[in-house]
């Protein structure tokens, strides 16, 4: 079936204003009659909940943390892009739009991306007014930097804590509405199902994590802003609680899941030090400006002290393979090259999963002082985690899962194919195509929450007067009972293996077969193994404790159960997409230089999958990507 | 606490300077004492004001301690606090100092402990404060009580004075070092100045 993105007609630059102009408005007196559920209070969710409440809607917001301020948006370091052109360096809405489309390897929907670039400027205004302490020049104006290889300086930042500060801005706006009584906040509440009535999303079922109470909540519309699914790979830069459960259960209730195979891998993370590892920590990519990446030429040197390995015995593989870009080769290319070196048995550090990032040449050239000035805080983080002094011995780095571009399918208004279900931020698939540019995740989350959803949800609500079911209606009660049964089922197994054990096994399988580079054979292997693992999980998992209390093992079990299903869809999507693009690299589809080879004639579409039952083949729906403004081109980094 | 603390510190400074006049001889100290008592209305007004300030300081301390103990109902098994010992024991040093002040008032002001002080008169037939001090500090137990009381007072001040600036919003990173050092110095000066009198009398440096 062909999907329609419901993009407004007319020239790209006018579409958003045309859309707003033709929107149905909800009378201020009627707004308070509508209830909206917002799930997740990261950048997208908190900004949406606050803004919708400001407009006069009754909002109920849910998060599984103890406070809305803890969502993993908080961990974003680098910055947020906006086409302000404050630096007078030739930036514009069009340029930001084009860079984002190109960065996404021409697999994003043009109209959405253009709108994102347009509202980016409003985001900065809004955040500055909220008191986000952006970096400033001495004259009091905002400072910018160039980020992620962009040719213009359009990134706004607040030290290395931009995500934290933007989240606090949204959290404060949300808190203000909670204080005013316009938002009812449910902390420590995890969404475990979507309530669908007559085909429309009309509520959710939650479990109160503090006491285990399972309850149905109904509303006129449901907004999901529940983040990405990177923890499907177990080890990632995500928070340990980040999960796909809300999105996945919506998928199982009929929402389409788009492009699940588009996953971003970040090349400069601190490698794992053992099987106990719980998460990977990102180190700024800027390190590659002065550090040189290498591994020993001979396998038998891998155990040696790196300082004892002679220059001639080192393989500076990025400089060798990509002479013009060298150590600055793009994220995906340098990630794959690191994996190849380690697969070749030449990896260093525990488990042979790491490569050196060496600053000795930079220290000689610039002096230790200069290196310290540029990267001192990163060297400190490295030392804190590894106990090693990177001024003395080379750093060890390795790629890690960092962001998922795929997510629930939404149209231009951010509504999924299930009417009344809106999806924002990383949870949707919409704006980054096959790869996300640095400093664009924060921009998208806030764009969706502050500026898009308040102008699109009205079109749906205007048709929904008095259609909200009661919390004790049949559909709501049935959904809550289903969730109760699911929890009981998990607790009843009392098998022999822990939840973490299954998660680790799934993660390893996904990392090996559906990580940086994928091929048919590996994906088919994974597709045979995942159902077996899932089956073993439901037979042999050991979830301790009871359902009617705070039970972290139970929380995790539900999430891993969903990852065990989602992983299969990711592999299916990766297998079906017989091309390489952005974060999806199929070894069979590469140029002679090892570059991603797209097949625009066959795959210039969004792959949106429809659930047909666990273990049953999902249906594929395609939304063709019609590029009216830009011409499809090939990236080159030679 | 901060505002009453400022007033008490001011009083304490003047009190110490007054005491030290004993080293200028009997005449100097007695005429200072007589000067303070020129007007009974002023004297009692001042005494009541000081008692009021002390009462405010003590009542605030009691209220604060009760509230603060209630705010941490369960203690850690073995707490390792970075806070200074003086700062954590203000209520203890405060109680001891309060008891000492009570004794001090009964001793030298009301003469309850030593009614014979009423009989000491100088050549102008006015109360002989100098003689009273000499007589008062001839007893080693009294001297010991005074030294301990003054020591605890200084201990209390070593945190209290700097804390006062913080509570009034007048301390920051830049001035912290200066304020804290000045506060310590002040505590030491108060101890030296206050302890000098009983010590000097006891060791017969003045008589």
């Amino acid at each position: 079936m062909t999907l329609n993105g419901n993009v407004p007609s007319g020239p790209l630059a006018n579409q958003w204003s045309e859309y707003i102009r033709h929107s149905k408005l909800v009378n201020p007196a009627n707004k308070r009659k509508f209830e909206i559920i917002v799930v997740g209070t990261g950048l997208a969710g908190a900004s949406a909940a606050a803004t919708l409440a400001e407009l006069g809607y009754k909002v109920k917001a849910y998060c599984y943390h103890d406070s809305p301020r803890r969502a993993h948006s908080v961990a974003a370091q680098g910055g947020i892009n906006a086409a302000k052109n404050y630096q007078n360096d030739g930036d514009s809405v069009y340029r930001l739009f084009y860079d984002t489309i190109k960065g996404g390897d021409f697999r994003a929907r043009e109209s959405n991306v253009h709108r994102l670039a347009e509202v980016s400027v409003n985001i900065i205004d809004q955040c500055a007014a909220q008191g986000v302490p952006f970096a400033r020049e001495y004259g009091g104006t905002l400072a910018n930097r160039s980020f992620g290889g962009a040719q213009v300086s359009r990134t706004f930042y607040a030290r290395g804590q931009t995500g934290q500060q933007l989240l606090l801005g949204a959290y404060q706006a949300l808190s203000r509405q909670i204080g005013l009584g316009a938002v009812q906040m449910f902390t420590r509440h995890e969404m475990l199902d979507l309530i669908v009535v007559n085909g429309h999303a009309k509520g959710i079922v939650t479990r109160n994590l503090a006491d285990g109470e399972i309850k149905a909540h109904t509303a006129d519309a449901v907004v999901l802003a529940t983040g990405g699914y990177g923890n499907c790979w177990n080890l990632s830069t995500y928070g340990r609680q980040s999960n796909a459960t809300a999105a996945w259960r919506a998928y199982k209730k009929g929402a389409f899941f788009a492009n699940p195979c588009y996953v971003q891998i970040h090349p400069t993370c601190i490698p794992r030090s053992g099987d106990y590892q719980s998460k990977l920590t990102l180190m700024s990519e800027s390190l590659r400006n002065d550090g040189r990446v290498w591994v020993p030429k001979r396998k038998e040197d891998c155990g040696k002290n790196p300082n004892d390995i002679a220059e001639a015995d080192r393989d500076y593989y990025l400089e060798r393979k990509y002479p013009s870009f060298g150590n600055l080769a793009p994220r995906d290319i340098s990630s794959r090259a690191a994996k190849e070196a380690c697969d070749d048995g030449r990896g260093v550090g525990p488990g042979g999963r790491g490569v050196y990032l060496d600053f000795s040449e930079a220290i000689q050239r610039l002096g230790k002082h200069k290196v310290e000035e540029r990267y001192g805080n990163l060297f400190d983080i490295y030392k804190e985690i590894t106990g090693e002094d990177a001024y003395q011995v080379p750093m060890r780095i390795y790629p890690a899962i960092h962001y998922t571009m795929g997510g629930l399918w939404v149209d231009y208004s951010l509504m999924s194919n299930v009417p009344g279900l809106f999806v924002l931020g990383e949870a949707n698939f919409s704006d980054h195509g096959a790869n996300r540019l640095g400093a664009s995740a924060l921009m998208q989350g806030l764009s969706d929450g502050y500026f898009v959803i308040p102008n699109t949800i009205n079109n749906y609500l205007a048709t929904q007067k008095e259609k909200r079911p009661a919390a004790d209606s049949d559909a709501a009660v049935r959904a809550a009972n289903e969730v109760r049964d699911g929890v009981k089922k998990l607790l009843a197994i009392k098998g022999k293996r822990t939840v973490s054990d299954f998660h680790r096994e799934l993660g390893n399988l996904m990392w090996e077969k559906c990580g940086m580079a994928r091929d048919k054979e590996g994906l088919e292997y994974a597709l045979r193994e995942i159902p077996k693992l899932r089956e073993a999980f439901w037979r042999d998992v050991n979830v301790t404790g009871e359902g009617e209390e705070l039970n972290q093992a139970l929380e995790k079990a539900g999430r891993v159960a969903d990852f065990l299903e989602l992983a299969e869809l990711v592999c299916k999507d990766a297998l079906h997409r017989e091309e390489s693009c952005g974060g999806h690299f199929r070894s069979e589809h590469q140029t002679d230089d090892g570059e991603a080879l797209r097949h625009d004639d066959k795959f210039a579409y969004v792959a949106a999958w429809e659930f047909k039952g666990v273990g049953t083949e999902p249906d594929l729906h395609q939304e063709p990507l019609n590029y009216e403004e830009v011409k499809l081109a090939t990236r080159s980094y030679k | 606490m901060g505002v009453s603390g400022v007033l008490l510190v001011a009083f304490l400074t003047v009190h110490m300077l007054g005491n030290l006049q004993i080293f200028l001889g009997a005449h100097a100290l007695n005429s200072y004492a007589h000067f303070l008592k020129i007007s009974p209305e002023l004297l009692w007004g001042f005494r009541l004001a000081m008692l009021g300030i002390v009462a405010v300081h003590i009542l605030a301390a009691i209220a604060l301690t009760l509230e603060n103990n209630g705010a941490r109902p369960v203690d850690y098994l073995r707490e390792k606090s970075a806070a200074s010992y003086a700062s954590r024991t203000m209520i203890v040093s405060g109680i001891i100092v309060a008891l000492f002040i009570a004794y001090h008032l009964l001793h030298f002001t009301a003469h309850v402990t030593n009614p014979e002080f009423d009989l000491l008169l100088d050549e102008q037939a006015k109360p002989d404060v100098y003689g009273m001090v000499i007589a008062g500090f001839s007893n080693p137990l009294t001297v010991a009580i005074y030294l301990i009381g003054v020591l605890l007072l200084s201990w209390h001040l070593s945190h209290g004075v700097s804390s006062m600036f913080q509570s009034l919003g007048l301390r920051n990173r830049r001035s912290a070092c200066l304020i804290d050092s000045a506060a310590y110095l002040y505590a030491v000066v108060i101890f030296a100045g206050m302890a000098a009198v009983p010590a000097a009398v006891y060791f017969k440096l003045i008589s």
Partner: protein
Amino acid sequence: MNVTLKVWRQSAGEKGRFERYEARNCNPNMSFLEMLDEVNEDLTNSGKEPIVFEHDCREGICGCCSLVINGEPHGPEYRVASCQTYMRSFKDGDVITIEPFRSKAFPVIKDLLVNRGAFDRIIQAGGFISVSTGSAPDANSIPVPKVSADLSMDAAACIGCGACVAACKNGAAMLFVSAKAAHLNLLPQGLAEKDRRVLAMVGTMDAEGFGSCSNTYACEAACPKGITVDFIAKLNRDYALASVRTKLLGTDVAA
């Protein structure tokens, strides 16, 4: 390395007690929370309930983790959260005590996990700038002196973990409240509401059952983000001026 843990265990409605566990074969490069993960795996495998503790980002920014390790909030290392404490900070054979943050305003929900909702309610009372989406002027139309922006950022670095409250013998929340108030009060954008904000936040802080500050500065030493007590002095000042203006003079900083 092997260590012995004395861990606080407490279920809803229970009084709570310490339990001893052995953590065997710890790698010095393990984080403290990873060590607890492993202990929990062992407990689960032996049919016991794992230890409940709050955690998420594990890189010291979300503010979830909240352990008192050997009597110190966030453990022995300077300026790090519990999740950034590594086993190399301990010795083989150590007995390590692990307790929840202790304060009346942070009741224990289970084991080492406490309810810090009081912090949210303080922010809801006034820890914001009242600017609805869409009403903001161009970001460069209000210049912010770099010094103010930097100082504001120092305060805004607070992760809301509550270690300041846990470290304070008075269970006072002054470091948190002062940092949150200073973050906004230092910016021109936050000036209009300054007096209202300070009075509302302090009022809510008192109502939530936090103790009063007695300037011991234990909070500063425990703060994983290095928030300084300068902000407490500033809050005291701002509060005094706001009280005089609002309660005595019937005016406001903005009037």
